[in-house]
């Protein structure tokens, strides 16, 4: 008798709870609703086609971690880095540095890949949007670390030194695909996503690592 009463009471409490919570869908349903809404909300324009709305697994995992504030499991992060590391290719001719003056122009330019950019037009690197680079450019962003004196403070200006070699290869990889080193880096994957060509990346490399570049003065 007593027991039955208890059960009835708890059932009523549950009913009350669900009455309040019922209309709000589950997280998975909200994910689904978001996908449906994305499907109804955009149109292809210029070179910005609808496939840009389908994030790869790396982006999905990082976005979820950032939204929920729950950092990625270490193994998952390592897997993302390993996947992205595989995309990095050393320069075909073995030369890592191009022309730092061209590199400065690429770093300055924020052009490319938007629906108002002509398809096939040269893309910029957007570098100054997030980084300080040369001392002369006052208009720089702070989303990424300062790259002023990049090569100098890493002692990577001495030709043929093992340090220079290591820093050069790391920097090359970082620009090609930053997420090989940091699973959820905010930096675009310039080579992997076809934003910059190999020749352009060499020029940006020179801006950072050529002893004659204003960055290292």
């Amino acid at each position, binding site marked *: 008798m007593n027991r039955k009463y208890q059960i009835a009471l708890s059932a009523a409490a549950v009913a009350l709870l669900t009455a309040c919570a019922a209309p709000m869908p589950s997280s998975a349903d*909200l994910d689904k609703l978001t996908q449906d809404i994305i499907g*109804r909300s955009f149109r292809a324009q210029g070179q910005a086609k609808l496939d840009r709305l389908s*994030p790869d697994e790396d982006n999905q995992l*990082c976005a979820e971690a950032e939204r929920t504030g729950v950092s990625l499991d270490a193994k998952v992060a390592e897997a993302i880095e390993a996947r992205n590391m595989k995309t990095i290719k050393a320069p075909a001719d073995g030369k890592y540095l191009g022309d730092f003056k061209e590199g400065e122009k690429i770093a300055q330019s924020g052009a490319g890949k*938007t629906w*108002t950019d002509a398809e096939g037009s040269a893309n910029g690197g957007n570098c100054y949007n997030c980084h300080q680079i040369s001392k002369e450019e006052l208009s720089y962003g*702070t989303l990424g670390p300062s790259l002023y004196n990049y090569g100098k403070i890493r002692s990577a200006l001495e030709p043929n030194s093992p340090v220079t070699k290591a820093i050069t290869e790391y920097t090359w990889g970082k620009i090609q695909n930053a997420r090989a080193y940091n699973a959820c880096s905010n930096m675009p994957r310039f080579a992997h*996503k076809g934003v910059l060509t190999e020749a352009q990346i060499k020029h940006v490399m020179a801006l950072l690592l050529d002893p004659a570049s204003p960055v290292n003065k």
Partner: protein
Amino acid sequence: MKKLFFALGLIGLSAAAFAQKSSTDSIAEYRAMLQDGNPAELFEAKGEDLWKQKRGPKNASLEKCDLGKGAGVVKGAWVELPRYFADTGKVQDLESRLVTCMQELQGFNGDEIAKTPFGKGEQSNVTALATWISAESKGMKFNLPQGHVEERKMYEVGKRLFFMRGGSHDFACATCHGQDDKRIRLQDLPNLTKNPGAGNGFGAWPAYRVSNGQMWGAQLRLNDCYRQQRFPYPLFGSEATIALGVYMGVNGKGGEATAPAIKR
């Protein structure tokens, strides 16, 4: 023959000179100088006229338009938008709601207006109306309703969209607007996930942009964010843009409405 005297100090020339001071000080000075006369006022005046004027196939004004606080109530409406509207069964922001009113009351074709490019035809009228209506809530505090389940759903969808990485550069809204005290070039980036950034950022649009002489509503602001994010084109009044509005507006609860603002 005229003589030229070098008379610095006798003549004062004021201009925000970026090179001569720290860039932050110079930008603050530049902004302060802009505050004095905001051309958004010209659009406010136009918007107020458009609200009261009999227009469209039905030759009616918008004075019976319900922006969420009852037919014809303008003051305070903007700080509670986007919100759920029972007549359309949708969560709507200010601009999409205005299009509904222009269709229902004045007989305009809402789909046609939504398809019109920003700054053209009836679309420029929507911007002027939004400028005036937002100005009528100037100084009030954001207080978006979250009582209806559709409003809560839109908040959750907006949050998912805010963190969604995509496009050629893997950018999300959160890439630039998810942290405190960051800059893109010299531009301060509000953190839109919480106050004060959310209230400051969301609460400033519609805004007049000095650099191109255009009045931008919140829809165009979001549209250009998506452009620079390298995403495809978000449709005017689309659920994605409204969900983001709900997300930012709810995060900005208690923040002060400063629109229509003036921007570089």
